[in-house]
């Protein structure tokens, strides 16, 4: 049912110059899903996120966000996007966590208007939700990689997003920080029903939180293999799978993250696990 898809992609193709990176990709991420996109380097994982945001134009195909065609979609403030390495890039900017998060409230403040106390409260609440309230006035450059990434998450939370798109959010941060970040995302997914689509290489640490995994092969984006009726009933879907297990498009059955690494390797070599 298209109406249930938070993100729906139909026959999406994209390439640079004459090289086709994606060929007729089709999938649906349901509302309330916590999904991951995996695949080897250069298979278009980050490109997919940029296509979903309209930052790149596909050669063919259609994209629907919350049931609305991307071409007429305007509610981008409800789509939270955390780009790759955003934390470390922000780390070179001489601004406090509060200033950085406040900038993202633009759609609520408006052009040429000055933020009020109400806006600052929203910012502090968002920082509280990611456990960074005590560091609101710290320079972002003085925070650890994991803390910077949580501030980047708070940036998108101020707009109360319905969909979160994260590009490699766990890269460059230690295991403890990964767990902490994933717990925050898990709570958003369960408590606030935020749909999450996350590009990751780090399945071993995040698999337990996911209810579906979309595997990218070299040229084809495999459709998610989870049966439709199962997805409909899997709103808090991390409970649908055994701890540490994932669904992989190329595999017949759910398996654990270690096996999926093998599966991804099989995709790269053109095989199927």
């Amino acid at each position, binding site marked *: 049912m298209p109406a249930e898809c938070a993100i729906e992609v139909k026959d999406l193709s994209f390439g640079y110059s004459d090289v086709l990176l994606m060929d007729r990709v089709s999938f649906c991420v349901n509302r309330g899903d916590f999904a991951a996109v995996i695949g080897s380097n250069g298979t278009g994982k980050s490109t997919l996120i940029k296509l979903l*945001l309209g*930052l790149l134009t596909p050669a063919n195909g259609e994209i629907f966000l919350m049931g609305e065609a991307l071409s007429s979609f305007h509610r*981008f*403030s409800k*789509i939270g*996007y955390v*780009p790759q390495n*955003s934390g470390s890039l*922000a780390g070179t*900017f*001489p*601004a*406090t966590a509060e*200033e*950085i998060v*406040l*900038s*993202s409230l*633009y*759609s609520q*403040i408006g*052009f*040429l208007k*000055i*933020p009020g106390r109400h806006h600052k409260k929203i910012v502090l609440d968002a920082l509280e939700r990611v456990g960074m309230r005590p560091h609101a*006035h710290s*320079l972002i450059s003085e925070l650890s990689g994991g803390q910077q990434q949580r501030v980047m998450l708070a*940036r998108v939370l101020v707009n109360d997003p319905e969909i979160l798109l994260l590009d490699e959010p766990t890269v460059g941060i230690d295991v403890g920080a990964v767990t902490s970040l994933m717990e925050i995302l898990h709570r958003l997914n369960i408590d606030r029903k935020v749909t999450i689509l996350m590009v990751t290489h780090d399945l071993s640490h995040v698999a337990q939180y996911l209810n579906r995994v979309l595997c990218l092969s070299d040229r084809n984006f495999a459709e998610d293999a989870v049966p439709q009726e199962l997805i409909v009933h899997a709103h808090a879907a991390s409970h649908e799978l055994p701890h540490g297990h994932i669904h992989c498009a190329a595999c017949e059955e759910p398996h654990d993250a270690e096996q999926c690494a093998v599966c991804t390797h099989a995709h790269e070599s053109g095989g199927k696990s």
Partner: protein
Amino acid sequence: MTFDILQYGFMQRAFLVGILLAVIIPCIGVIVVFKRLSLIGDALSHTSLAGVAIGLILGINPIVGAMAACIFAAFGIEAIRKKIPRYSELSIAIVLSVGIGLAGVLSGFVKNAATFNSFLFGSIVAISDFETGLVVGISVLVLLSFILLYKELFYIAFDEQAAALSGVPVRLVNTIFTILTAITVSVASRTVGALIVSSLMVVPVATAMVMARSYKQTVIWSVVCAVTATLIGLFISYYAQLKPGGTIVLTAVALFLLALLVKWLRQLLRAARMKGAENEST
């Protein structure tokens, strides 16, 4: 006795113009530095020289020529930057080369070399009433625009892509900022000098970044450092009979070195205190 410097009308004008420019140049500089375009001032000021030459050759006001050339160059930088976003600093180098080349060639056709040379190092103590009025008008315009666009400029400098997705009119704000940068550089070229304006755009910001604990503080400290450097520079240049533009910039650099020294001493002091506390606890 000490302030006999202020008895002269030309020095009063120099202080007024110097302070106003010291307020607006770092405001532009903060955004320029954080957009990783620190050398844009160099490119624009050199292009402004080409505009000055065109103005002098055609018999129009050289500041108007400088302004037109700067605006043209600023949009050129933006256009090239978009074509090669991964090497955005190349856009500055290309426009800088065009500016130097044109200024070099056109200066050969200028009959009044003294007027042209006055734009190289500026002549803040020899500016006319018209130029003073121009600086006042442009300063008010730049300052008002900077205050009104404060959050938009911050957002674009921090993350242009996210700003666009949030609905910030990035193109409009960038266009306004480009024009403000161009007119600031062109009018500052006349007063502090084309070869010096870019230093005033960057050095106070660098000093502020050593001391500030937020973006807002960086803006405030940048302005404070630039105004301080201008005041001290004008005093020194008057009493030591030095060129004002160069003296102001060297003072700004001295403040930067002082800020680094203070920071280093504070770190040493903090480390010594921590070591003392550790020794006490053991």
